[in-house]
């Protein structure tokens, strides 16, 4: 059994004893074989001394048990690292940022507390996965959709708190943005409900997110200020139809007007699906379009068709663009349609992304296990062209004939008005290669920051580096976060170092 950092054997033994009393001995894990299951499957330091690992794990099943575990940790100054289902692959998995922390595993808290069809919302616990919520809705025959990410086996709450996104309509595919109300256990064990939930016997916790006074929910996103034990989400009433058309161009410079048109249509809420942009250095071959944009519209069929006519008119006003109207799919999908669509676009969770990203005859040089480099850049064609130059200069050259097998860039529009230029860095069993991947990743972070771009999410190994690039006014944002951290978690027991926020006793000068 290993000890958490800066914790004496006596203190740890006392904490373990208290936790066993609180949650039951069978839910406190200290044996190496058990704790190893919390390793990050895609750690960029996999198998190396610097890999971040847990020292133990404890798995409460109720709010009261979470409170008890946290109070004990606070009393004995034991660092905790809460996880939901631990599926944040490519961005850290279930391993703690501060190596040696005790994983606070919330998978047993897996109740779907409510799904309200009439007002289209859900209230869930952290252990509820997208598969679970989908299954609950299907069994109850409720006419609402969830918005699963790729893949769908993760926690609904965990994905939202990590800043994840999905593939259906806005605003639902912004998972944190579509939440409504939280229940949080603070480091001292106190329970807080946010928004309308702060009203005892509130009738509108999941109906309105703002409540009264300063809104604090954002403090719990990608953070270490509390343990979220319940969260509400607005769901999408099942749309009658989805139609996805395609706009292509053979001209490189056309990405500028293409994106301008798309942005305007999206800001007008005419294009509400997750647009995808393909092109640039990934162009598949001679004769293929230089740029391809997919334009999905969800809604009632007459509205979808009318909106698509308008969208077509706007794109085809640019003579060099080609507009291809896509098939309209009515929902619920027919069995035949189910085999022809990308399921996540229809709110159906699945695991196909692993097969797609894996090595196979059609994909001989895959990313496989990978970490995501995910800078946010302005949503303009000029930025995409600049990002492509940046990629050509720093990635293609640095990867030396694709030696590292870097895959990208993938232009993602998970959220309205936002463009993420994702690059996937393969992580494998070859430590020397992983070392090169890490060096390139770190270089890209710095070079991107020089251009005014920064990542929205990152694996634990790079969170300090990326946080350091958000350095406006002598890192005043970091200092504000540290001030808040010291106030709400003075002993620094919760998720030390997560997203670059360290407690006072672990802060570097």
């Amino acid at each position: 059994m290993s000890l958490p950092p800066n914790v004496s054997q006596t203190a740890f033994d006392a904490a373990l004893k208290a936790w066993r009393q609180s949650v039951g001995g069978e839910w406190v894990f200290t044996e190496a074989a058990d704790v190893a299951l919390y390793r990050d499957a895609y750690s960029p330091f996999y198998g190396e001394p610097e890999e971040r690992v847990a020292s133990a794990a404890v798995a409460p099943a109720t709010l009261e048990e979470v409170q008890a575990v946290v109070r004990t940790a606070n009393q004995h100054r034991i660092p905790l690292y809460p996880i939901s289902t631990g599926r944040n692959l490519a961005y850290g998995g279930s391993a703690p940022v501060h190596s040696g922390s005790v994983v606070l595993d919330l998978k047993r808290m897996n109740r779907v507390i409510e799904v309200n069809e009439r007002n289209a919302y859900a209230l869930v616990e952290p252990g509820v996965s997208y598969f679970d919520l989908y299954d609950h809705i299907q069994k109850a025959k409720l006419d609402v959709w969830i918005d699963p990410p790729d893949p769908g086996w993760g926690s609904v709450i965990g994905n939202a708190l990590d800043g994840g996104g999905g593939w259906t309509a806005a605003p639902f595919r912004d998972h944190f943005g579509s939440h409504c109300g939280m229940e949080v256990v603070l480091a001292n064990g106190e329970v807080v409900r946010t928004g309308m939930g702060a009203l005892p016997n509130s009738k509108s916790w999941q109906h309105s997110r703002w409540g009264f006074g300063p809104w604090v929910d954002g403090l719990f996103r990608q953070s270490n200020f509390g343990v979220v034990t319940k969260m509400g989400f607005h769901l999408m009433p099942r749309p009658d139809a989805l139609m996805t058309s395609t706009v292509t161009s053979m001209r490189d410079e056309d990405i500028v007007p293409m994106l301008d048109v798309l942005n305007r249509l999206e800001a007008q809420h005419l294009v509400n699906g997750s647009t995808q942009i393909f092109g640039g250095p990934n162009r598949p071959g001679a004769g293929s379009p230089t740029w391809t944009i997919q334009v999905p519209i969800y809604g009632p069929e007459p509205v979808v068709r009318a909106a698509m006519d308008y969208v077509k008119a706007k794109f085809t006003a640019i003579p060099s663009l080609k507009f291809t109207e896509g098939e309209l799919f009515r929902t619920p999908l027919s069995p035949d349609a189910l085999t022809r669509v990308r399921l996540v676009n229809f709110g159906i969770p699945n695991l196909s992304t692993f097969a797609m990203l894996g090595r196979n005859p059609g994909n001989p040089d895959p990313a496989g296990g990978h970490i995501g480099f995910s800078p946010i850049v302005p949503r303009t064609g000029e930025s995409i062209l600049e990002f492509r130059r940046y990629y050509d200069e720093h990635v293609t050259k640095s990867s030396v004939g694709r030696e590292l097998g870097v895959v990208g860039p993938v232009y993602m529009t998970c959220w309205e008005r936002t463009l993420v230029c994702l690059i996937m860095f393969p992580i494998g069993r070859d430590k020397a290669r992983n070392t090169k991947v890490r060096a390139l990743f770190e270089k890209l972070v710095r070079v991107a920051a020089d251009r005014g771009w920064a990542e929205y999410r990152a694996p634990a190994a790079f969170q300090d580096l990326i946080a350091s690039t958000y350095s406006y006014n002598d890192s005043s944002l970091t200092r504000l976060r540290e001030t808040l951290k010291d106030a709400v978690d003075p002993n620094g027991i919760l998720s030390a170092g997560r997203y670059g926020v360290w407690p006072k006793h672990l802060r570097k000068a």
Partner: protein
Amino acid sequence: MTSRREFLEVAALSAVPAIAGTPLKAAATTVSPQASAFDALQLLLFDERYSQSRDVATRMSRTGAAVHSLADGDVTQVWLNRIAPAWQRGPSIVAGVTARPALFCLEQLALSSGLRVVFHAEHVIHADGSTEHSLLRGAESLDLSSSDLNRAGARWHARIADALTRYRPSTAQSRVGRSEAALEPFLPPRTQLLTSWIIGGDRS
């Protein structure tokens, strides 16, 4: 109620929906009259994109194994409709000759049912057709060695089919952790990687 062991070996997915399903053997794609020979093995998954995988499925189905095709390597449907319901009822053995991601996903799911990867081999298929084999776990329980596979040459998959057919769960299954399925070995460009595997083991 989930047991401590099932939960633990999770790290995983609480995510096994309780979808009604049929027993694996009854739902088999192919079941021969000699099915009793396969009491140990409940289902073989094969990836129809690979001739070697198809050959193993053909051989095993002839002798009574239930086999299921993965058209594109994705395990979602077979897991939801067949494997998850079976694992909710109790431990049952699933094997495969598939691409690596199928094993990775099913291992993660298996851990939450108290099951483990008890056999894992990798077959690196080079552009010239030659194949390198790495036996990573449990080969001894199948009486299988790399030299066996090398001797078999281009017909190595017949040897794998034979070994999978003979597998019987051990009553003294040692406790093992996660396999190496999450990450790939370093491979030269244009090579393919097939995995042979068995997920099984008793609940402990």
